[in-house]
């Protein structure tokens, strides 16, 4: 049976650990060998909305494994713009390639693509719903930085109400043992109750509006951007925006091993003076993301088991 990667909700802890293990093996593999894992394979990269960062990561991952890619990065010049259904686009493109990566502004689009296609389908973001490769690369980054995920104390900071990245990460981390969450957000952007109600039971979580408290006690801080559009009252935004700004001065109270992660792009929530500190892990995170996407491609395209 073909395998897809559509939603982090579909993955058991065992499956997640398999991806982490595969990523580690790929990272340890001699370059000469790694560069031919997917020789002769073709990946369809279908971006129905622009997301340059994610697209480049998938394309680099495929090319560096010896495979090739075709696709589009927005729909303006495609048959989709003429009103073609998603099913028809998928059934056409699948005649050309060996697997499909899809990014789409509508929730559930990747699931539909997986249903109509005989090829493995990877979800690179479906509206506000899922972005499972981001979650897997976040986990791989944590694993890499700390040698483990179990037992970490992790702060999630910023817009915890609407951030798809945060919701998926919470659900994935809840599958590990002994994770202590510190949820740092303005009152109006707190993590919704339905996200806290994970299948594993209640989260071990502390909620606060104070970023400094998290800095002093956590192993990792996962920053997200607070978007102005989320606030009905612009004054309200002005009041909170600077409370979630991380700079070098604020990090003086951090544990020496504290690492700062961010899904990027950052705007002003992490000051540039943090970049040169040993705490900054957001650019290495991009590199681990490349490895994780290679692992996902190798796994789904059968280059490695």
């Amino acid at each position, binding site marked *: 049976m073909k395998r897809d990667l559509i939603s982090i909700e579909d993955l058991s802890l065992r499956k997640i650990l398999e991806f982490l293990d595969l990523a580690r093996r790929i990272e340890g593999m001699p370059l000469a060998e790694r560069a031919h894992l997917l020789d002769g394979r073709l990946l369809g990269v279908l971006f129905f909305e622009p997301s340059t960062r994610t697209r480049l990561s998938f394309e680099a991952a495929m090319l560096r494994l010896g495979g090739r890619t075709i696709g589009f990065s927005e729909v303006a010049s495609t048959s989709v713009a003429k009103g073609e259904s998603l099913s028809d686009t998928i059934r056409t493109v699948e005649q050309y390639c060996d697997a499909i990566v899809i990014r789409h502004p509508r929730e559930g689009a990747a699931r*539909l693509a997986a249903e109509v296609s005989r090829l493995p389908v990877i979800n690179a973001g479906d509206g506000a719903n899922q972005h499972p490769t981001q979650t897997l690369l976040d986990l791989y980054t944590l694993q890499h930085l700390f040698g483990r995920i179990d037992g970490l104390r992790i702060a999630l900071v910023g817009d915890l109400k609407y951030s798809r990245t945060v919701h998926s990460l919470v659900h994935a981390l809840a599958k590990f043992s002994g994770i202590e969450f510190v949820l740092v957000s303005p009152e109006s952007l707190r993590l919704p109750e339905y996200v806290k109600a994970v299948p594993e039971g209640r989260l071990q979580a502390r909620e606060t509006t104070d970023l400094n408290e998290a800095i002093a006690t956590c192993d990792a801080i996962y920053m997200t951007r607070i978007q102005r559009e989320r606030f009905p009252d612009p004054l309200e935004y002005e009041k909170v925006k600077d409370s979630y700004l991380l700079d070098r001065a604020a990090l003086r109270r951090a544990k020496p091993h504290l690492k700062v992660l961010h899904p990027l792009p950052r705007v002003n929530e992490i000051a540039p003076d943090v970049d040169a500190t040993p705490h900054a892990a957001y650019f290495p995170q991009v590199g681990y993301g490349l490895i994780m996407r290679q692992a996902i491609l190798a796994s789904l395209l059968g280059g490695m088991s």
Partner: protein
Amino acid sequence: MSPEEKVLLIPKIENGFVIDHIPAGAGGRLLHLMQRHREFDNVLITLGQHYSSRRLGRKDLLKIQANELPSRFLQHLALLMPGVTVKRIRDFKVAEKVVMETPDLVHEILRCPNPNCITNHERGMGTTFHLVERETKTFRCNHCERHFTQTALTATLNI
């Protein structure tokens, strides 16, 4: 003769179905739903309202002179009015009796309330909802993965 049996006798049907234990006042809504199922176009249906019931105090009931009830209708019924009883009548007697329960799976009959769900944009595409919590009657859309209460889901039926 028990009060329950008396109720079933007026007007007696020889073969067909009785939908019983409908909350009082909801029978009209159910009749309205049935009018949206073409299979009932030429079927004799009698609505009884405000019968006394030991269980509900007052109840409505519907008598339907048809050989079968369409499965789409039964799905709608289970979703809208869990707790009602469907009785199959043969030779004036109750031959079979089923209490409708909130279904575990609702396939193809509802629209997803999330306007950005792909099911609302892809031509000819159906929906699937899974019951994720029976107590609160919460369902999850198979595609957009959002959770909806039974009330939010049936609101899209527009009856």
